[in-house]
């Protein structure tokens, strides 16, 4: 029972995946979508941890995924590492990069940090474009092998969503620990965080590194599944899309980014013209910020709360209102 209490989101995710599985497995094209959706869900979750929890508005998740993807490509295709061993590097490399940069930029205001991540993402992607020997430059990297025995779209879909569930599980573990609470505190009030003994820059950097590692997993999965990489594969657009997905779904909630991912993917397919995609994304973002800043999850929570209090269970007013001292 305590598992239910502590890992509600994980169980909900498992249930949703199990319910969707038979439908998805019946249509080959959905299987493919399920894999890519899993990649996006991982990226959006990585935004959730960094923006939703640590308050770092990150615009470099695509670049971190790229680093992970190229690491996977190099290890498996060029150096012949055994399957899955390359995952370690695909996570570690972005994480180290993010931690190092995080230590420098997290002492800045949130706005400056956001810009720094955007610049960082751009520098990484420019480097990838130009490092011909390592990454194949603009032309890209072809012939990335499958992950060992995992070969069919079905197997990839299963792996992708297992990874999503694993990340949700780890995310929940984190949020139920001292480190997770520290992130909550420092996001709302850095002075309070310091008074609790929290090293703000270190905690934020650790969260940023974790989020980069998750983006790295997404890149790793992507590289092995699509088998071809080019600098445009996981570019700034992907970073922005992942950010939008997380914000619209509710970046502060564990499952918010996943809901945003599924929603965005569905709605994008219904658009009349591809040119309008940016218009749709932009307006969706503005509307969600105006109407429900905490995302759809937050909106849902508010509605549930309103329905409850509408039933007569109004909160008792706080006794002894806070009064400022004479000044």
């Amino acid at each position, binding site marked *: 029972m305590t598992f239910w209490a502590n890992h509600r989101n994980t169980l909900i995710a498992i249930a949703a995946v199990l319910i969707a599985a038979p439908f998805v497995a019946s*249509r*080959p*094209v959905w299987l*493919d*979508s399920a894999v*890519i959706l899993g990649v996006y869900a991982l990226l959006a979750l990585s935004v959730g941890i960094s923006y939703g929890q640590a308050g770092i508005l990150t615009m470099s998740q695509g670049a971190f995924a790229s680093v992970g993807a190229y690491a996977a490509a190099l290890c498996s295709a060029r150096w012949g590492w055994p399957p899955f061993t390359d995952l370690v590097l695909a996570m570690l490399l972005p994480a180290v990069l993010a931690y190092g940069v995080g230590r420098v930029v997290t002492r800045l205001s949130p706005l400056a940090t956001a810009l720094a991540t955007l610049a960082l993402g751009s520098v990484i992607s*420019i480097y990838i*474009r130009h490092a*011909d020997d390592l990454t194949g*430059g*603009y*032309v*890209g990297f*072809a*012939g990335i092998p499958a992950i060992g025995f995992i070969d069919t779209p079905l197997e990839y879909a299963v792996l992708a969503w297992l990874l999503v569930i694993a990340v949700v599980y780890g995310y929940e573990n984190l949020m139920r620990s001292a480190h997770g609470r520290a992130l909550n505190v420092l996001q709302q009030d850095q002075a309070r965080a310091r008074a609790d003994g929290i090293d703000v820059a270190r905690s934020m950097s650790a969260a940023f590194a974790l989020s980069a590692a998750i983006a790295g997993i997404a890149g790793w999965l*992507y590289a092995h599944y*699509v*088998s*071809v990489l*080019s*600098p*445009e*594969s*996981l570019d700034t*657009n992907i970073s922005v899309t992942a950010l939008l997905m997380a914000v619209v779904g509710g970046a502060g909630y564990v499952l918010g980014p996943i809901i945003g991912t599924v929603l965005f993917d569905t709605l994008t397919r219904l658009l*009349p*013209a*591809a*040119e309008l*995609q940016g218009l749709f994304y932009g307006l969706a973002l503005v509307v969600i910020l105006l109407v429900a800043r905490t995302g759809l999850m937050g909106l849902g929570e508010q509605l549930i709360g309103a329905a409850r209090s509408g039933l007569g269970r109004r909160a008792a007013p706080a006794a002894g209102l806070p009064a400022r001292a004479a000044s």
Partner: protein
Amino acid sequence: MNKTTCKSWRRAAAVGATLGALALPLAAAAADAPVKIGTVLSLSGPAAVFGLPERDAINVVAKKLGFKSPGGRPFELVLHDDKSNPTEAARAVTQVINNDKVVVVVGPSTGSGILAAGPIASRLKVPLIAPAGTMAVGDRKNEFWPWVFRMAINDATSIEFILKDMAKSKAKKVGVLYQEDAYGKTGVDLAKEIAPKLGLEVVETVSAPYSATDLTAQATRLRNAGVDTVFLQVSIAALGTSFLKAARQIGLDKPIYANAGLAQRSFAENVGPEADGLRTLSIGNLPFEPIAEEKELSDLLKADGKVPQGWGEIVGANGLLAALAAIDAQAGKEITGESMRTALEGLCGFRSYARGKICYSPDNHDGWDGSSLTIVEIRDKKMRTLD
């Protein structure tokens, strides 16, 4: 808008197909069921400059044929956007094959899109008719090579064509400006490789990212290298314009050549007098001086309210015609992706909207040779064919 008409006929086709399926007894369906052709093109993103004309041409040709192949076999088009992005290209190709059961795909529009979609096409055993010159697409080392048929001139042929024209004018030292992407990079590498064979030398190369607005520094660098002629490996019109303006400003008065990326009506019309004299490679000259075969396509487009843009239409229309020719080659048989592939490999000299002959064989998937290429010169906002 183009989009709406396209959408509405698709919807009409879908409704028609549904009604047809309801009306006909199932047994009769097999032979007469339309063959499905996928078109996965860049309708948005940087490559939309080529993807949109490709789509328009495919649409008007299909309409003109009444959605029946020249041999009388009904067909259906399934259109998807690859968003100039390899991931989307791979997804779209998977989708049209798995969901819509197409037997051949025209597209994706970009080289990287084709590289991403190739393994999928190979796995699902459906050939791609690929409208891109990128060398890597036609690399025999690719596992998916048997499944990709190029419907464009490969870059090596194109660049050699340009450099030959340069060599004619006694130029020796070549400067190259290339855009920072696969198109630009492969172009500059090929130019460096091919130039010495023609007695030319690439003495300086400079690059520019998509977003660059000011290229005077790059132009200055080429001027200072003392080049006799400049080669632009650029498909982003903004970069081409920016460079031409910069070249004029800094006094780089040398002949400038551009690869086919700039052979577009919108570029010729938008750019000012600084483009006068710019020579660009093109497949035909559809927008301004079409030869007889091209004229037919150009008229079809105009009749449909479209303005011919460049070689995108030629490539797109011929992609569809190649697919239809391959379908007709299998008259009366059941058509699958594999049978399409075999038929495409036997295709040679079918009716097309292009100068030059398109020929595939089990050994050659590049189709076009240099005979369909031409150099056009931009003057007074028009592209003039040079002989």
